[in-house]
């Protein structure tokens, strides 16, 4: 069977033009997708049934048993942490928030180690952004700062920027100028019109220098800023000022480097500065398929986009204190529920190690590094493959992911709902 207009759930691009050939419970061909999409749909090995760690190994258990034990762990915990949420749909995320409120947990999503600092910056100075459709149809100058779309978002350039034909930019390759700022000459840099190779940690200084030049203060700029020549900075500032419509996309090169959210704030303020000359926008390159959705769902329900602490009975938000890595590294939480993510692989060692010291339950379709740190692993559907649901693209556009095959697993929203109902029953609804 051929399925059209399928949404790939892997990265924040959420490409919605895939054509899939399906045979029974398997996807046998992926058309239009990148190699990440092909691997997502065609190389999808699952944990067959719930497992529980014993003193010497692992044993299979039933879903009912796994759900009961998870509810007991969460009910008995004084400071539970609910973490992950970015590779599942909004329906599961919203049940997660209800559980967090019910048991007074901290709930955090993967943006905490991704674009969390971007959100902090946006909370300080706002977000002059737009949808990817606007970029595709209007932008004649594209800046990729501290990101490498060829590797991390392989179809971003062909669908929206460098190679995409737009209404006002019909000859994209000739009419769009692409600028890349990075410490490494990566594959994206190799096809840029201007590549600014910066010394590690130089983002804040280079952004400040560009802001100064755009303001007409180029006389105060030294000959080199973080390894980039003054001449190149002036040239790039002029390209930006002369753009009809400019779009800055930034990645973890800004959020994870020294300065963190202050780097992003400076980039937003450069955007503001450029918008006094022409039209400029800025947007983060969101990583996981539905990480933006986790921010949306958390914000509608709690008022805060990540790192929400319900210990006081009301939603409290203080990144640096209520963020997952900080709670784990302080050894503060005494139980953890991990959903649709892999902190075992993606958190620094000390934070990941705490998961093995406490009862940790993982709800995820795949065996991953966190499996080894868990007490129980409950397999579930994978959103966008064998479960339908809503996800948010990196520009905040909600897209309905399709169910393309049936593999007999329960939806994670359903598992979470059962845990919630059990908690309500035992705690008194």
């Amino acid at each position, binding site marked *: 069977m051929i399925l059209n207009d399928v949404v790939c759930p*892997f*990265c924040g691009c959420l490409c919605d033009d895939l054509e899939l050939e399906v045979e029974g419970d398997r996807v046998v061909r992926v058309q239009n997708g990148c*190699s*990440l999409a092909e*691997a*997502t749909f065609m*190389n*999808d*090995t699952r944990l067959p049934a719930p497992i529980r*760690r014993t003193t010497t*190994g*692992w044993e299979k258990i039933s879903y009912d048993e796994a759900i009961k034990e998870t509810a007991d762990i969460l009910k008995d915990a004084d400071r539970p942490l609910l973490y992950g949420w970015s590779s599942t749909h909004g329906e599961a995320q919203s049940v997660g928030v209800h559980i967090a409120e019910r048991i007074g947990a901290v709930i955090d999503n993967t943006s*905490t*180690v991704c674009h*969390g*600092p971007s959100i902090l910056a946006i909370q300080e100075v706002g977000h002059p952004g737009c949808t990817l459709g606007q970029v595709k149809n209007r932008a004649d100058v594209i800046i990729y700062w501290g990101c*490498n779309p060829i*590797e*991390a978002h*392989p179809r971003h350039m062909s669908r929206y920027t460098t190679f995409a034909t737009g209404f006002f930019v019909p000859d994209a390759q000739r009419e769009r100028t692409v600028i890349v700022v990075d*410490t*490494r*000459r990566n594959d994206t840099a190799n096809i840029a019109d201007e590549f600014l*190779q910066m*010394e*590690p*940690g130089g983002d804040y200084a280079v952004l400040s220098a560009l802001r100064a030049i755009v303001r007409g203060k180029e006389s105060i700029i030294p000959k080199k800023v973080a390894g980039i020549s003054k001449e190149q900075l002036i040239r790039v500032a002029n390209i930006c000022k002369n753009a009809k419509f400019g779009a800055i996309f930034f*990645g973890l090169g800004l*959020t*994870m*480097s*020294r300065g*963190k959210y202050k780097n992003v704030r400076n980039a937003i303020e450069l955007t503001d500065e450029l918008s006094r000359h022409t039209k400029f926008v800025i947007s983060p390159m969101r990583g996981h398929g539905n990480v933006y959705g986790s921010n949306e769902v958390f914000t509608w329900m709690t008022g805060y986009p*990540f790192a929400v602490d319900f210990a006081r009975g009301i939603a409290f938000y203080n*990144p*640096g*204190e209520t*963020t997952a*890595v*900080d709670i784990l*590294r302080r050894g503060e939480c005494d139980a953890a529920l991990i959903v649709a993510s892999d902190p*075992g*692989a*993606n*958190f*620094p*060692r*000390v*934070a*990941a*190690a705490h998961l*093995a010291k406490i009862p940790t339950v993982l709800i995820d*379709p*795949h*065996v991953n*590094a966190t*499996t*080894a*740190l868990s007490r129980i*692993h409950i397999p579930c559907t994978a959103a966008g493959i064998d479960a339908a649901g809503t996800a948010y693209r990196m520009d905040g556009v909600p897209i309905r992911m399709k169910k393309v095959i049936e593999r007999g697993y329960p939806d994670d929203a359903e598992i979470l709902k059962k845990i919630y109902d059990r908690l309500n029953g035992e705690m008194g609804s």
Partner: protein
Amino acid sequence: MKCILNTGRTVPQGTAVEHKGSDAYRTVASACFLNPVDMMLLGIENGARIRITTLTGYVVLTARSAEGVTRGEIFVTIGPYANHIISSETHGTGMPDFKSEWVDVEPTGESVRSVGELMEEIGGLRYDPE
């Protein structure tokens, strides 16, 4: 040799990301890209084992030559190998220094551990599917 550890995503890492127990994932996540001049100064060839040490601990990786990496920097894909040596300090932001950890790089004869072994070193127990 003192270097700054940079981490990031790559296509091979992304295609193997849901198969963390596989050899393919171990190969991509434990590859360490260095500038060829730095490799020459360390006296190592492409494919050599290197030991990367920080205050948090050490990890053994496979050296890969990459001209795009500047001298004094090393690049490792995001994942359990890089995180084995990255500090959990977040400076009050929630975000660790995934791209600015100072590391010490030296040649070694030790072998690269599996993801399961790394998780067992921090208190886990690997699950081997039947």
